[in-house]
């Protein structure tokens, strides 16, 4: 396998990938189907912006956002059946149970931990310790500018946290579990070791003050862009969207079995952050995972960072293995 040169790197030397938008397959079928899967993503994004911008205060609240989020994900699950990107990524009962287990952990135990250790709590403690106020520079800005800043601040932090996870071994141990997923489905973003899920949720947004409606707008925009990272649906995503936002194509490359491909496309929503720092690769991959696509059980996903870390520690600091015999050449 020769791979494709992208900048100074060879992508796809270890596992097949498709590089360049011109090589990514298009949606096939009648005119309605092609129209639907071309404009669905922008239509949802602009509808969400309009809804949350103009919704009366009695409707514009967190419970409405949660309800819309659940209904939207259920609809996208149906779309995975209608127009899958790859048959090999089809959602099975077992995959669905595994994914929902992690979604459930996020809504329960991780949420509970966040109440005590989450970044919002830590920042609130920091502000109160030093008797600081939140930075209120942004509350005077237009709502959409505030919403963009909320998302950008979070995404910029997440970009570096994610890139750090791919470059610093202790962080990689926690993140590697997420890279053992062998297919993309709508809830796969939730799959990972709880330590990583906690770390990736950290942000400095709590330092800044925003209008509540701006926060709701940010949540809706973030959902309308970020939800497609892990999805098994083929879209004819418009070029401007692919230039600005992370897509399932970008993220499938990031999850590829090819090592170099995984070291790209770190941003959660705004792929232009990767473009700025030279880590963006446009394309897609079907074969995902680690160790040739070995599927990890939930038990191993829970323990892997610790058992693997322990093994590494023993190798590095433990006694030399005297039983190991080096064969003579």
């Amino acid at each position, binding site marked *: 396998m020769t791979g494709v040169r992208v900048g100074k790197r060879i992508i796809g030397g270890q596992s097949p990938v498709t590089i360049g938008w011109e090589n990514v397959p298009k949606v096939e079928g009648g005119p309605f189907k092609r129209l639907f899967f071309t404009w669905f993503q922008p239509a949802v994004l602009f509808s969400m912006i309009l809804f949350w911008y103009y919704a009366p205060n009695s409707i514009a609240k967190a419970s409405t956002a949660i309800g819309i989020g659940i209904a939207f994900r259920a609809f996208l699950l149906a779309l995975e059946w209608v127009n899958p990107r790859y048959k090999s990524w089809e959602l099975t*009962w*077992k995959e669905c149970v595994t994914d929902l287990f992690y*979604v459930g952990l996020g809504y*329960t135990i991780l949420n509970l931990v966040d109440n005590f250790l989450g970044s919002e709590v830590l920042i609130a403690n920091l502000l109160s310790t030093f008797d600081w106020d939140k930075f209120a520079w942004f509350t005077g800005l237009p709502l959409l500018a505030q919403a963009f800043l909320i998302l950008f601040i979070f995404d910029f932090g997440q970009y570096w946290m994610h890139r750090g996870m791919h470059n610093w071994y202790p962080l990689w141990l926690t993140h590697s579990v997420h890279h053992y997923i062998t297919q993309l489905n709508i809830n796969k973003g939730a799959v990972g070791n709880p330590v990583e899920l906690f770390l990736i949720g950290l942000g400095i947004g709590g330092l800044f003050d925003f209008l*509540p409606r701006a926060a709701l707008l940010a949540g809706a925009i973030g959902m309308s862009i970020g939800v497609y990272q892990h999805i098994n649906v083929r879209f004819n995503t418009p070029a401007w969207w692919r230039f600005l936002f992370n897509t399932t194509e970008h993220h499938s490359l990031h999850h590829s079995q090819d090592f170099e491909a995984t070291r790209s496309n770190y941003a959660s929503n705004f792929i232009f952050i990767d473009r700025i720092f030279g880590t963006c690769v446009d394309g897609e991959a079907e074969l995902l995972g680690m160790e040739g696509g070995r599927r990890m059980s939930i038990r191993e996903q829970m323990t892997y960072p610790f058992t693997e870390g322990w093994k590494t520690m023993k190798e590095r600091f433990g006694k030399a293995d005297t039983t190991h015999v080096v064969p003579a050449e």
Partner: protein
Amino acid sequence: MSGQAQAMPGGEAPAMVADSDGRSWMRLIDWIWTVRGDILLPEDLSAEQAFARLDPFFHEPGTRFDRSDDSLTFSKKDPVAQDKMSIYDTGVLRIERDAGGAVLRYWMTSKSLLFCFLAPLLFVAFGQLIVGVGLLAGPGTEQADKKKDEKKKDEVRPLHWIDKALGAPEPEKPKKDAKDKKEGKNQFSPTSAYVFAGLFALLYIIGRILEDKLIRRRFQRSLAGG
């Protein structure tokens, strides 16, 4: 025929038919994680031919199997997601002949089914834990944390003139008491945990019925040569 993998001791094959030995009581509960069934084989199909037709099921990554004349024992470790038998961990397939003809009887266990069956209990426990932690944390700490923000909550920050011109609704003065009560309640609410407990109970019922039917249909198709 020897399988591609390590042999499994034949003595470990469980009873596939109800019997009166010490294990029969397990039949009362092992339906939770065990899928059993029997399929009548076409008249002219020998055991050798039947297992040859089922052979592709056991050549998936992570699968070990051992085949004798009339039975096949398998085990799977970390099967790939699209393995048609990915939910099963161990099992036995046996061909038995009686006056009615040849029958394939299968017995397969699934940790995934057991996990899904127990998941509702786990999430109910999570719900109880959340309630317990909420009681330990107490309402006092939340109120103390909020005191500092109270003054701010009373302030209504105006919209930017662009938003006013575009017709976005003005922010309301928050109803402090009602909101605080609600927030305090939601912070340690077990509702999500109970919703997921219900969801996993539903998923178990779906999986137990669906996976049973799917594997039966797949075996039938393969045996019919389809």
